């Protein structure tokens, strides 16, 4: 008996509610769907804006990125690279090195990549591009800090690194640099 009363009451309430929601011709489920769609589109806009902000931040960081160009000997420049390497940073590195070559008559640029987190095909391509550009300016590029893992990666990627002089340590790079400018390191 209680069950019958409950069902009757529930049906009556449900009928009233259904009538109320149909007053404007839009059901609750339609409203929810509409709100859901609105929230989804707003979320996607927020995501897009976040990406734009990230891009801008990267650009600002790249512009603030102060590349240390160390003159370690007559006509020898050393460029220690640390952190990650992307196209923006690579372009900045290349421009700075090329301008330095022109202004300081640099003959050898030693680029130390021991501090770079990951050396993938993109980083290797950037390094080759920098080496080619420096060669066009009449300067030789030496890349130091090539670990066995990096060497293996570059070989596996099948990249042509014939334009690059590569060394494992900075010490070897220095020896090569001195040789290129006509000096030899001799123990006294």
């Amino acid at each position, binding site marked *: 008996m209680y069950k019958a009363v409950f069902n009757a009451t529930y049906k009556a309430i449900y009928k009233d509610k259904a009538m109320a929601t149909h007053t404007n011709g839009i059901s609750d489920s339609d409203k929810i769907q509409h709100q859901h769609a609105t929230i989804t589109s707003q979320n996607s806009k927020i995501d897009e804006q976040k990406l734009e902000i990230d891009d801008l931040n990267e650009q600002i960081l790249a512009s603030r990125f102060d590349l240390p160009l160390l003159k370690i000997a007559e006509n020898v420049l050393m460029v220690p690279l640390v952190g990650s390497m992307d196209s923006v940073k690579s372009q900045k590195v*290349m*421009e700075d090195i*090329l*301008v330095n*070559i*022109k202004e300081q*008559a640099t*003959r050898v640029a030693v680029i130390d990549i021991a501090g770079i987190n990951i050396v993938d095909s993109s980083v290797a391509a950037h390094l080759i*591009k920098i080496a*080619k*550009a420096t*060669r*066009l*300016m*009449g*300067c030789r590029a030496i890349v130091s800090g090539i670990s066995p893992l990096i060497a293996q990666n570059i070989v596996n990627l099948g990249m042509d690194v014939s334009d690059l002089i590569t060394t494992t340590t900075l010490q070897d790079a220095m020896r090569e640099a001195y040789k290129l400018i006509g000096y030899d390191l001799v123990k006294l």
Partner: protein
Amino acid sequence: MATLDSKVSQLRGVSVIDLCIEDLHQEKLCYAFCKKIDAIGSQQVVIDLTLVDVIVRADLEKLTALNTGLKMMGRKVMFCGLNPYTAAVLLTFDAEVSLDTELDVDHAIKALSYSSKH
């Protein structure tokens, strides 16, 4: 190419060609300079690009042709004076840039004399 004579000078036994953008627009650049260098008779040639601020693909083709022409005549050729922006632009071209380059005329002459001795 009326002022061809003024474009070629002799420095320590090496012919130095000073090129500017207008020269690169000349159609017979390769022929004219090959003829001039042949008349001078020098074996080593430096091509100075200091006055070339911008370079396009067609200019690179002309420079490559001049380089090839002079090398076919048995001359040793060295380019110099590329500015940083021109060097960066050259890398954006698909073609492989196979020019021997040095920083300036002085270094180019030294490199040529070094290569002739060794």
